[in-house]
């Protein structure tokens, strides 16, 4: 390290010149994350039990929120969408839902990006989308053979996501993710991932349930399954996230403009 004293040269404004960026995120970052997500598509979520559909989901779901935290809403959505699209073709064994999963991935990652935004009101828009999705999901169940009590029990995890999105827990997660203390960062990633994953799950399930419409017996089995699945996604996202964000901070690459770390 060089000795002290003021440098002789004039201080210059530092920015990425001419490089292609989306919403302040260099395109190279989006490509890298899309590649990571595509590769993660090969690994099925081990605790995932998909009743009524058959098949399984990709582990990339566990890091959609993280991609949003790191790249911001638009760039995160793009990276997740590209990664998922490639993943469908290279890892068909986890492509249970098919092309709609590209939209789910994008919404999921965009929610992550919105959660870490310090300004703006996109979170209200997201609340509206997830709220409507939740109503659609439960509403459709009530039109089949599911009663309200069972619907609420099964979707308690999803409901927790909506409530935590509205409460100051969303901003708490945002602040913890920005914290340099590794333990607080981990807590922030866990809380933030839970909020985003549960709402993303609600959005995806609203569509899935509309097309499949599984009966009350399946809803009962899902009561313990959904929280376990979400805990797994949250755990994986937080573990990967702590390592990745600590590494990004250490190597000092230029942060995307909308990054939350």
């Amino acid at each position, binding site marked *: *390290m*060089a*000795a*002290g004293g003021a*440098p*002789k*040269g*004039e*201080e*210059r*404004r*530092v*920015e*990425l*010149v*001419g*490089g292609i960026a989306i919403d302040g995120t260099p395109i190279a970052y989006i490509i890298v994350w899309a590649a990571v997500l595509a590769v993660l598509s090969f690994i099925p979520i081990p605790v995932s039990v998909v009743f009524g559909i058959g098949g399984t989901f990709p582990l990339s779901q566990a890091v959609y929120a993280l991609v949003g935290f790191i790249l911001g809403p638009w760039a995160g959505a793009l990276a997740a969408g590209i990664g998922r699209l490639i993943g469908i073709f290279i890892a068909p064994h986890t492509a249970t839902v098919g092309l709609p999963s590209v939209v789910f991935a994008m919404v999921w990652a965009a929610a992550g990006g919105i959660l870490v935004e310090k300004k703006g009101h996109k979170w209200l828009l997201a609340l509206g989308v997830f709220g409507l999705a939740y109503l659609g999901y439960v509403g459709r169940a009530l039109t089949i053979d599911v009663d309200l009590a069972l619907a609420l029990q099964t979707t308690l995890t999803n409901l927790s996501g909506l409530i935590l999105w509205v409460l100051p827990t969303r901003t708490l997660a945002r602040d913890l993710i920005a914290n340099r203390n*590794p333990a607080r960062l981990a807590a922030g990633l866990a809380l933030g991932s839970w909020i985003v994953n549960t709402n993303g799950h609600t959005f995806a399930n609203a569509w899935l349930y509309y097309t499949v419409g599984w009966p009350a017996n399946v809803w009962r089995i899902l009561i313990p399954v959904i929280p376990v699945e979400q805990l797994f996604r949250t755990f994986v996202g937080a573990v990967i996230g*702590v*390592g990745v964000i*600590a*590494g990004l*901070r*250490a*190597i*000092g*690459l*230029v*942060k995307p403009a909308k990054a939350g770390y």
Partner: protein
Amino acid sequence: MASYDPVVRIENLSYQYPRSPGFVLRDINLSIRKGEFLGIIGPTGAGKTTLCQALNGIVPQFYGGRFFGHVTVGGLDTLEFPISILAQRVAVVFQDPETQLIANSVEDEVAFGLENVRVPRDEMRERIPWALEIMRLDGMEKKHPSELSGGEKQKLAIAAALALQPEVLVLDEPTSQLDPVGSQEVLAAVRELNAQLGMTVILVSHASEEMAEFVDCVAILANGEFVDIDVPDRIFARADLLRQYALRPPQVTSFYIQLRDRSFAPPSIPVTLEKATQTYEAIRTQIKVNPLAAPDRAAEEPSGSLLLSMQGVEHVYPDGTKALRGVSLDVREGEYLVIVGQNGAGKTTLVKHFLHLLEPTVGQVLLNGQDVCDLEVSELAQRIGFVAQNPDNQIFNTTVEAEVAFALPNLGIGRAELAARVEESLYTMGLADYRKWHPLALPKGDRARVVIAAVLAMRPDVLIFDEPTTGQDYYGAKRILDVSRQLHQAGKTVIVITHHLYLMPGYAERVVVMGKGVIVLDAPIRRAFHETALLRSTYLAPPQIVQFAQGIASRENVTLPILTPEELAACITGRRDKA
């Protein structure tokens, strides 16, 4: 010949990374003329890589941070033009080739840069084989870069840069993983391009001998500042200055400095082998060369009990590459063995068999008489510590301390013992002040030390170091080898793979020379280093001082099986002195 137009102009450059506590570069001023071949030397962490990256705008455009002053390349300010434009003028070969290899085949890798700068297809068809031939990669066009050895990857990165025929070529330790003859060939080719095309070359290297032979001018960078810039003859003759900054002169220079200190007064201190020979002719009437007795062969035989044994091992990779061809090797307890050989000779493949990271296609590998294929990799890892060629492949924790401690709980080591071992390893490798740092925040040389510290903490019986001195400055390399010597003296078995032959005297006892998947020589170090013809057959060159001594031995008709400048200087007396 360099023209007087500066192609690179650096004015009052100071730079601070986003989270570094101070400036990594400070008040750097430099003008590099078109066609100049500049060498930059300096200790690990001096700011050499940062300076290289400032030349094509990666610093600060990609890293951010605080940037003071101006850097212009070919008239373009590196803060005002995008990296993509700057890259058309400046090609950079990074220290770690893996960071810049992205294509699916060797030829695609070379083509990638050319496509980006829109070189016409016909010209690309000429340049790709041309660049691959210079780097001795012809015949590997269709291979995936991940199938190449570390040295071959480095050559591929250089080939891709050379194919661009840029205005400015920046080489950041480009030969650190290459075999000695390969290094010479690469730098000779670069020198030729420099002369023929007027390409400006900036070379960062710890290899003093190469610097002295190839560059026009050498700059010493230390603590982010230029200490001195001068021609190699003057820079390398300043032994005190070099020592102060953890640098070393070429071996022949070191020899003549020792003679000078003993009042033999050569007319000048030479820095290349050729000039050293000329200087010798000038002073040979004043000096007497006393022969050094050849060592007793019987005394050199290893005596410990058999620990590792490889019997007729062949290994064929899935792509059909035959990496080992009937290799048999015995390693005894307490030996210090060095394995050398050309890039792709099979050195790393060989040691991976000891750890059961690879299985022999034919043959058997035994540890204490037990087939390693019957042992779990985890069990082997407790007994054999392995420091891989690329430290980044072994790093995954968020602090240096956590990295060093990582494996210990799996060995059933309690908290107090764990803390003591971590502490000892951190101090041994000089990392105590960095314990809370993220390993990736350290320079590559220091990251290698983190991995070594982690392996030391496990206290295995056998330690295998694969190119442990790559990217280290002279004293950093010596520090690692000193640790290996301490371990050896404590009864451990040490196996080192290296291309840095000049570092091994005083450490290794036995040398195994590999070439194209076979062992071509297995001999004590003093004998092995003087088998010049055989070494050359596998693209190795003995250390410069050995080559110089052989010239003297032949001229004076004496035996000189020396290994170091000190040994050679000790053989020299004045004509009137008693031997």
